[in-house]
Structures are given as C-alpha cells and as structure tokens.
C-alpha cells in the first residue's frame, strides 16, 4: 500500500488506456508518454509493461510506502528523494515499508512516470484505470490522503535503462501528411514544415496548442464530424495548429494537415508551454521502421543488473546534481575494489 501524503500539481493514474470503446465516444486516454510508462514498468520487472503507474505532471507527489516494493522513475527528469537520499532515474530502486518518496519538480519535459513492481491495483472502468481528464472516466486525479494498493515485493531483481533519451531544446517531431491535405494548399504544408512553433500554455492532455498561425486558403473550413487519432495536427479556422493527445474527443471536425508518427507520440506527450518545436516529413515506411526500432529498444536497452552495479550507476548519475555524493562514490568504489581482492 502507498499513502499519498501530498498529491503534487497534477498526478494521475495511467496505463495503456481504453481500447475498443471509441465507437461509444470514449477517448483512448492512457499515458501521454506511453513509451516512458512502459520503460518504467520494465525497469521494475513487470512483464506486462502497460500496468498502471503514476503520471507525474510538473511537480510531484510525496508518497509513503506502507509495504516493501520495487520502484522506478522514467520519462521527464524528476528530482526525487527516498528518505532524503536522492534517487537516480531510469533504474529500479528497492523500497522498504515506512520509507517516504518525495518527488520534486519535473524538468526536460513535463511528465515523469513512476511504476512499482506488480503495478498499482485499482478497479478499472472499461478495461482501464486511466484518468481521462476530459470525460471524467477512470481514477480521479490524485488527492492528499489517497491510498494506492500495491503488491508487497521483496524482489532483488534489478534493471536499468542503457541510453536514456534527452528531449533537447528544440524538438523535432516526424509527421506524415494528413487525410485532408487536399483541403490545404501545398504552401500551407511547406510553411508548416518550415516554421518553428512554440507550445501554448493552454495545452493539456487533450491537445498541444501551438502559438504561431499558418496562412490558410479560404477553402479549408470544417468537416462533418469524423473519427480522430492521437498525433493528428488539426488546423481550426484561426490557423493555429492543435496536436491531439490521448484525452482528445473520439470525433472532431477540424481538417487534419499532418499526423505525428506513432514512434514520436512519447515525445509529443512531453511538450510543455514555451517549448520550441519543428516538424519533419517522413514516409510511411520510415515511420514504421522508427516504430520497430523503438519497440526493439524497449527489449534491448533495459538490462538486468545486480545491487552493486545499480548503486554505482545511481551515484554516477547523481554526481552532477549532488556533489556531496562524490565522497560517498569514492568510498563505495574503493570498498568494491577491496571486496574484489
């Protein structure tokens, strides 16, 4: 069990989302950066990498573990401490009953993911626990005092992620042309590819809004309502693109100029106010091969490690932000060297 001592700015339960109910008007929901949730799950040894974890937005919660567990943090960089000891991202961490995890600010992206061994157990709605901020389905936004059911674990299995991705200062998202490109002029599309856009502060889990407007031909207009997909770049009458995220309505009526490829949906879910963004066109074959690469990376980049290796990695990862750990690191390394002799 986990007790939520402080819920943080906006902490949600997320999993793979609701699949198979869109014809009832039900949004997909699920982790905005799904690859990061899957990584976090794999880092705690969850064979099902779509198990429910926490999606931590902007600033994180304070959680007391009432039972032993194994946790991992992935996604955007999160400053976190377990009983005052800084925690490294992208690796498993053994937690003992009674310990308190304090999550600080999220940076280099807007969403971090916390997974625990066995997942967070709570009844789902339509096959998912995912908080759907638009429809109100799933677990409510986390509140102070909430209790989250987890499976007690004394696992000594450990894993770490070999090459954590960095988001970078200017983000490029790969797109394929949308289904309604014939409604736009060729100029609109090339202008779209040439522009550097800024993410608007009004962005949420339904969509990322962009500040800059495209020049549109008068013919664009609106469509009869039709099904939409995550990653669709909708262009309403004012010319300012909106990129759809998992909580988007199942149908929509604005023409779609381009669609962000599936392999880039994770980075799409990390966009926050003020970030700079460009689009690059790829072919459908390239889109598919990038997705295969990402899928392969989930298998090959997460590797098993013993306790000593995880501790050494953790000290190495934290040395930049926490110079006070350097002495500990030296001590630790010399101790291990002694042990080897």
């Amino acid at each position, binding site marked *: 069990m986990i007790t939520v001592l402080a819920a943080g700015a906006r902490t949600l339960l997320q999993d793979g989302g609701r699949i198979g109910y*869109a*014809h*009832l008007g039900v949004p997909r929901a699920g982790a905005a950066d799904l690859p990061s949730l899957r990584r976090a799950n794999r880092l705690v040894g969850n064979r099902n990498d779509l198990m429910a974890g926490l999606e931590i937005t902007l600033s994180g919660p304070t959680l007391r573990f009432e039972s032993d567990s194994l946790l991992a943090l992935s996604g955007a960089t999160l400053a976190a401490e377990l009983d005052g000891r800084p925690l490294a991202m992208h690796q498993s961490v053994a937690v003992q009953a009674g310990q308190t995890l304090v999550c600080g600010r999220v940076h280099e992206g807007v969403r971090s993911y916390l997974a625990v061994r066995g997942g967070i157990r709570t009844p789902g709605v*339509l096959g998912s626990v995912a908080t759907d901020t638009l429809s109100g389905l799933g677990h409510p936004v986390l509140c102070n005092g909430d209790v989250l059911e987890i499976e007690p674990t004394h696992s000594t299995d450990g894993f770490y992620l070999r090459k954590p991705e960095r988001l970078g200062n200017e983000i490029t998202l790969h797109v394929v042309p949308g*289904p309604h490109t014939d409604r736009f002029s060729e100029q609109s599309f090339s202008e779209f590819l040439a522009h550097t856009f800024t993410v608007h502060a009004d962005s949420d889990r339904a969509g990322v809004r962009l500040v800059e407007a495209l020049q549109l031909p008068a013919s664009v207009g609106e469509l009869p309502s039709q099904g939409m*997909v995550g*990653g669709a770049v909708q262009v309403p009458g004012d010319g300012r693109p909106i990129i759809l995220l998992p909580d988007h309505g199942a149908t929509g009526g604005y023409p779609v100029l381009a669609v962000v490829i599936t392999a880039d949906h994770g980075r799409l879910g990390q966009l926050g106010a003020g970030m700079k963004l460009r689009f690059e066109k790829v072919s459908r074959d390239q889109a598919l091969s990038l997705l295969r690469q990402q899928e392969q990376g989930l298998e090959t980049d997460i590797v098993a490690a013993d306790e000593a290796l995880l501790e050494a990695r953790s000290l190495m990862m934290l040395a930049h932000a926490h110079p006070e750990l350097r002495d500990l690191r030296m001590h630790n390394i010399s101790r291990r060297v002694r042990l080897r002799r």
Partner: protein
Amino acid sequence: MNIRSFGDAALLIELPDAQAAQALCQALLVGASAGIEDVVPGFQSLLIRFDPLKQDAARLAERIRNSTYSLPFSSKPVEHEIGMHYDGPDLSMIVQASGLSVEEIVHRHSRAVYRVAFIGFAPGFPYLTGLDPALHLPRHKTPRVHVPAGAVAIADQFCGIYPRSSPGGWHLIGTTDASLFDADRDAPCLLSPGDTVRFRALP
C-alpha cells in the same frame, strides 16, 4: 468507397452516409481481427485505428474494399422519449438568429423525430439528425468553457445532448435528467445508432 491513410496507425473510410458507416462499423466489431483497436463511425466516414506492428495498412484497406456488409443496422432500433425543460441560455439568441418565437422554437424542436446518426465527441454524446431546417445554425465562434451535464443543444443539422459537463460550441436550448452514459451499465450508452428520439417538453 474512398480509403485514406490517417497517419501510420489508422485508415479513414469515406462513406455516403452515417448508416453506411454504422453498418461497416458493426461488421468490423463483430469480426474483430488482430491488430484492429478501434472503429469510430462519423457522419460520412469510418475511422479504423490499428496497431501498425500487427496490421499492414495496405492489406487492411484491401480487405475492407472487398468486404460485404449488410444494411441496415443489425439490432432492432429502440424508440426513446426524453423529457426536457426548454430553459437553455441560448434560446434568446436563437430567437434573434431564426426570427422565430420561443414557443415556435419549442414546437419545432419537440415535434421532430430524431435518429441517432452516431455517438462521438464524448462518451455517450449522440449526434441526432432530423432537426427542423429553420433551426440549423452555425456553432458558436468561441466555444463555452463549461456546458452543464444534460444540456440539450443544437448546431448545424444536428441536435445533441451533453452527457456530462464539458466545453462545447453548440447552442443550448434546454436540459434533461436522462443518464446518457454510465460505464457500469451493460450497454453504457443510453442511445445507440439507428435509435429514434422524441423530446417531450416538461413544464
């Protein structure tokens, strides 16, 4: 039928009308196949979302082109009567835009027999066709941030009901207590495509 790619994980099938979209949707839901995740009927289209690692887009398009599906709806349509209060905040605006009196608007709205074309926008939100042409109005230029649950609204050729409070750009003409969506029910949506709906004015 015209089939377009919609990104790398969906196909958009353009169809003549909502009924054709529903028929193909039912056929696909019944014969669900590996890799198909969601089917979303629209007014003149059907969107098919699939897992591109499990389903090849070209092969799926080919299969749909060759599929036979029967019209009309497989299950028997239900007739609903929904009680509502004509107390919407946009009534006076509709009076201005249409040139009709409130009594006339209520009369025209409540005498019509509507048909559920499809469910979209939000869980359980019905797109109802059959709205009196005198009441066809373009949606608000700036959508409301907060439309209350149960709001009965009109826009273009459609009448709709907001199952829960949400943002929305339609003209609000009244409210109903009907529960349009409940995830705990066997059939979460009160209304299904093909059903008919009449509104009864409550005092």
